[in-house]
């Protein structure tokens, strides 16, 4: 090995004799694909629910609190 550089990172040594072999990153596999599909599916479902698709109704009122839940940043809907 040969000294290559000395910097704030530290001392770097180079191994010039490296013979590169082909990288073989293991594939994600069926389990990995399944996990990803389920996770993305659940997140997509939540995202679709988030997207506002109903008409908004705005009414000004004079009082709001956690005790009297009246604030509506989001559209209210029935339990579908």
């Amino acid at each position, binding site marked *: *090995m040969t000294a290559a550089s000395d910097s704030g990172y*530290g001392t770097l*040594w*180079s191994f010039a004799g490296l013979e590169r072999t082909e990288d073989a990153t293991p594939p994600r596999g069926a389990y*990995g694909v399944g996990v990803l599909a389920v996770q993305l599916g*659940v997140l997509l479902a939540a995202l679709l629910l988030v997207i506002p698709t109903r008409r908004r109704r705005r009414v000004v009122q004079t009082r*709001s609190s956690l005790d009297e839940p009246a604030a509506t940043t989001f559209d209210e809907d029935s339990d579908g």
Partner: protein
Amino acid sequence: MRVALPGIRDPAPSLGGMPRVTAILVVHDGERWLDGTLAALAAQTRRPDALIVVAEPTTEFRTDALEAAGVTQVVTATGGTFGVGVARALRAVAPVEGEEEWLWLLRADSAPEPEALRALLAAVEVAPSVAVAGPKLVDPADHARLRSYGETVSALGATVVLVDDELDQAQYDPVTDVLAVAVDGSLVRRPVWHALDGLDPGLPSADAGLDLGIRARLAGHRVVRVPAARVERARRPEDVGRKRPASARLRRRIARSAQLHRRFVYAPPLAVPLHWLALLPLALVRTVGQLLAKRPGAVPGELSAAFRALFDPSVPGARSRLRRARTAGWRAVAPLRMRGAALREHRAHERERADDRAGRERDLVRASFLGGGVWVVAATIVAGLVIFWPLLGASTLEGGGLVPLASHAAELWSRLGWGWREIGVGFSGAADPATLLWALLGSATWWDPSFSIVLLWLTALPFAALGAWWAATRLSERAWPPVAAAILWAAAPVFLTALGEGRVGAVLVHLLLPWFVLALVEGARSWSASATASLLFVAIAAAAPVVAPVLLIGVVAWAFARPRGFVRTIGVPIPAIALFAPLVIDAFRRGSPLAALADPGVVLPFTPTSGWGLLIGRPDADAAGWDGILSAVGLPAAGWDTLVPAVLLAPVAALALLSLFLPGAGRSIPALAVAAGGLATAWLAVHLQLSSVGAAVTGPWPGSALSVYWLGLVGAAVVGLDATRRAAVSAGAAAVVAAILAVTPLLGASLVGTAAVHPGDGRILPSLADAAAAADPGIGTLVLTPQPDGSLGAQLQRGEGATLDDQSALHAGRTRLSEEELALADLAGNLASRGGYDPAPELQRFQIAFVLVTAEAPGATAEAEAVRERPP
């Protein structure tokens, strides 16, 4: 089975040419309405010629009621649908003798008005082509309220109920010809009934009348509705046989099943396979539609209806029944379908009425953004730019827990889920849920993903202020308390510490918490809000898994506190569960189950703080504190560095505690419970040891939990300020000024250079190794780090180095080394200690092109130093 009961009379003899009506009354668990319906039949001005009652064997009859109604036969049988009941009744009567024989189909709850049958007959007598005549089905409590009055289909075959729960103002009287009517209360020409083979067994409740009408129309007959005839409908057909009325979800599922059944029955033979193949894809598309329409409860019904339709055994029989009776093409019914603008208007009208029924017209409170919000956000923008002035112009940040993200956004997304983790010697396993955050964050500046971190830091203060201000407007509609909340939240000690130490997860938690609380509070009434809360829950739990349990407790508590919104609220953690499940399973499998609670990103050990430190919001003893200022004024750091901020933060704590005794305590008690939960979580976090880096072992940083603690404190303080009214401005101003003074060292940390975070060059490795890795990402660099305790840390960095998205809690929390890691450790040890050692085979094995010996650390061993000095 026919039974003889007292009070049963013989049927009236047939009179040639005169209409003869056989009324069939199917009781089917409707005993409580039976006497009323029999009485209504007894009061008919035109009595049926025969009345057959189909009942369960256990049904009890009043003899006088049977006699008064003129019941001619009682058929008893167990179970069966309405159509089966009618078929049983018809088996007990004489065969059809002429065209003018009619069946009057009634359920137990179908009590007709006295003129009903006379009106129905009057309508059919003048129109020989009419085969089915339907009355107005009305509310038993209010006959002016229409329950059903005609049905049709859309161009695609969806059921369209022409009238459903509307006030009868004769608005529908002029149009009598319809595609179909509800089966209960209808008068059906008996020969046509037999020709059509009665009701379709595949449609036991919904669409039974619609299908009968369509088949009658296709057989060349007319279906009309009769405005002068009224019959009560006490329950929907879907409710028959149920203890409680079917829920909206169940009704939707039944309706969808019926629609799919009809589609297979009506489709041309060649189209049936196509419909069958399209069932599941269509169900998925409709699932998306249901979610967009905020009806997640309809999704299981949508899918189950599709699966039922896949294997519906009643379709062949129904197709055969339709084919036998059909004499006209579908064009014959086309004018009676609803389509185009009429359909859109009808559906809009239905939606409006559904909205009105749900009572959505609620008042909205939203403090004006111009009434304080805009000013506090503007002020924090300026403050952020000043505080982070040294970071302006940077394209990457580094230091503390910050390392660059991968160079390309696509790489960030490839880390998601489960697969190969390129850290250390590499392993296959679950990704940290935070990889999703890094992917989203990096994609915001896709041309240079690491730049997103710079933007996050520069905008952190205004974003924090905005979130807190918005959330606080739910606690106080006055201008000043939300402004105070915004300043206190943006100047939280733990937030500024996280920014200074480069703890990106904790920063995200602090930014998202107010929005999460806001969405959760409103989530009890809105699917959109609860879904937002669920995504924010995912983000917060991914950024700091250690706070997930306390948030989960909060969600469950809120769900029980708002029973009407229970379903919406309790589902909030579902996406987080989906994201964490693979990691938790993997962690268990690897023998380090608590690794899932570790902070994501670079493992950054910290010096734990005391309980008093936690109480004043100081997450660790390393945070830039008052030491320098105290020494400048000649005071000892020990003790004073806790006492000074404690005194300065006391007004906030006092306001929070005072709120318990002021109006609005109903809001401050939950807020303080949240604070207690956060503090307890922070205390537990300090005592956990989950991750290791080199010789250091550390746990989750308690700062994220302290953000929860601070959230509760600020929330309670806002309630206190709101209640103090006139004193609010002075009390709030004092608390805010004191709180800002308490974090003075943190505010100035970046400017004076005591913060760990600083502009970076975007590299993790020296330029030579970085350039080589850019050309060949597969090469490795072995990083040897002398440890303070005299040991040597060895880490294999692949390509351009382990980026933020490469980090893995499973890797950091592993409790045993793999054979590969042991071999790597051997290599590192031999490089450090053995003269004449030939590392080439091992370097070749691990594809290591460079060895980096990091700058000497205090306490490094002579062996480690030897590595620096000796050519390996």
